[in-house]
């Protein structure tokens, strides 16, 4: 299992387009990915969960990744956030 806290740094936060990018990327990996924000937990492979997180700029998200390709999955997640979702 991998855990990582990431701060949302793009201007608009995880709005529809970045949320879609995240979900689409996650579905390429086998691992299960949970996102925790405050007491809220959602599945990173489901768009409505990700959007209802309402993760605006500066929110802290904890990713919990479980599965055979968890390293690659985490790497992909970090890449997306680092690139600010190509904003």
């Amino acid at each position, binding site marked *: 299992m991998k855990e990582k806290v990431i701060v949302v*740094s793009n201007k608009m936060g995880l709005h529809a387009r970045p949320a879609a990018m995240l979900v689409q990327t996650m579905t390429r990996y086998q691992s299960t990915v949970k996102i925790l924000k405050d007491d809220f937990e959602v599945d990173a492979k489901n768009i409505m969960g990700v959007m209802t997180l309402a993760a605006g700029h500066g929110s802290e998200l904890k990713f919990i990744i479980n599965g055979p390709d968890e390293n690659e999955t985490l*790497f992909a997640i970090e890449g997306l956030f680092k690139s600010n979702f190509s904003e």
Partner: protein
Amino acid sequence: MFNRRNIVFKGIAASPGIAVGNVFLLEVDDFCLIHKEIPINIREAEKKRLNDAIEKTKAELKITYDKINEVLDKNYAQIVNVHLLILADSSMRKDIDKLIESGVNAEYALFKVIDKIIRSFEAIEDDYFRERKLDVQDVGKKILSNLVGKQKKTIASLDKDSIVIAHNLTPTDTVSIREKLVKGFATDIGGKTSHTAIIAQGLEIPSVVGLKVISSQARTGDVIIINGDKGEIILNPTPEVIAEYKREYDIQFAKKKELEKLKNLPAETIDNHKVLIYANVDNPDEVQSILKNGATGIGLYRTEYIFFTRKAIPSEKDHLEKYLQVVKKMSPYPTVIRTVDLGGDKLAKMGLLNIEHEENPFLGLRAIRLCLKYPKIFIDQLRGILKASAYGKIRLMYPMISGLGELRDANKILEKVKQDLRKEHVEFDEDMEIGTMIEVPSAAMIIDAIAKEVDFVSIGTNDLIQYVLAIDRVNENVANLYDPLHPAILRYIKKIIDESHNAGISVSMCGEMAGDPYYTPILIGFGLDEFSVSSIQISKVKKVIRSIYFADVKRAAEEMLKCSDRNEILKIMTTIQIH
């Protein structure tokens, strides 16, 4: 509406412009949602019915997606993409299936689940995120209409004078509207960031959203004025009010026409100082639009898009294909192709390179640095560019050059690629011009030396400002310090232009500063030769150029260079006369 005239409804201005026309009311689809008990033996069939409706909706959305791609750019298609992902949401699907398994009919199960999701969106404090419930609603409605097989009133009967009024418009509706070229639209719900508003802005159709009750007040055929600037509409206006608005509309129309007229006129000051206006593009699709707007070349073709849209590093063939599409359409105008400006993190994300995580990607392995470290990526791109150069006028540009070493190393690789092509008897333009972006302060400082080894330079102001002022462009905490009029920036720009001219080469600018008409006079005053700007800014920049005297702005620019205080610079800006 009995005899009541001039009823004003205030909403939210979603897309600017004024229109007068006749109401076309798009009815809310009202479904009869009855809770029915489904016998246990047909519950599987009921699940299949739901599945069919979802699949049908998916197919319809895919068609919309393609259509949007045709008429608008990719960003808008993302909206439909979000809808497709909502359809694919497995937790929603599980919840609906569970309800059906417990004996609830598909329609009601769908309604219950969507309703629950919408309520969780409504609990969100942030406006933007809360509004996304509309997307969920849209998708729910689409599935529902496929479940009950009810057809929505068709927009086919719309005509050119129509102003569409609806409770809400889905992106699909909005695109159909565009195909019909209606005059405007107004909706009960939605905010400034609702997807419909975003699409309306892209289509340049006046629109007002968030009018709350308009769809229950207006009737098809009513006369209506829509004011997308103020965010209000007037139902059943009196002839006097219509006349007033028509006047306002004419003024706006004339302004737009005036900008259009500039299309074929040269970018030249009143005292005949000529410059060139080129366009920035990301994608071959944009070529038509930039030519329509009067661009006489492409000053910056960003090639990153070719990388973004692929899961593997693009091949020589991938490059060539894109460049040919652009170059053939642009001929005889020149196209400046910038070799890829990507960070290693992006390529690592694509699983293409094994690059360590970078703390500071803007100062990291990016652009030419990446290409020199991984020459295969670079060579494939250079081969594509060179091969395309046989079909039109291409100029090659390197990004992020920080000194002579990188420039010479890049040229060495280019020379090798050329030799290979000659051996293979492949044709290319032997005289293709080579230039560099000037966006790293060290390159700007030794511009005299660089200018002697290239055919042109282009100032990338976005990065130059970021690096000179040490401001991370995407960091909100320091964004207010980002300032193109900082005396240091002005001196850098002037130095780059003067010393390049001394070496006998031309200077272009392709950052956002070049496309902002506010800065146009000062850039002309500094002696900039080429402006490379986004398509819609071409006429605006040209209009300013055609309304100033070079002698005036040159004097003002010289004055500005003496200033060390930003306020003095701003004062001089206000004295520049736009005729």
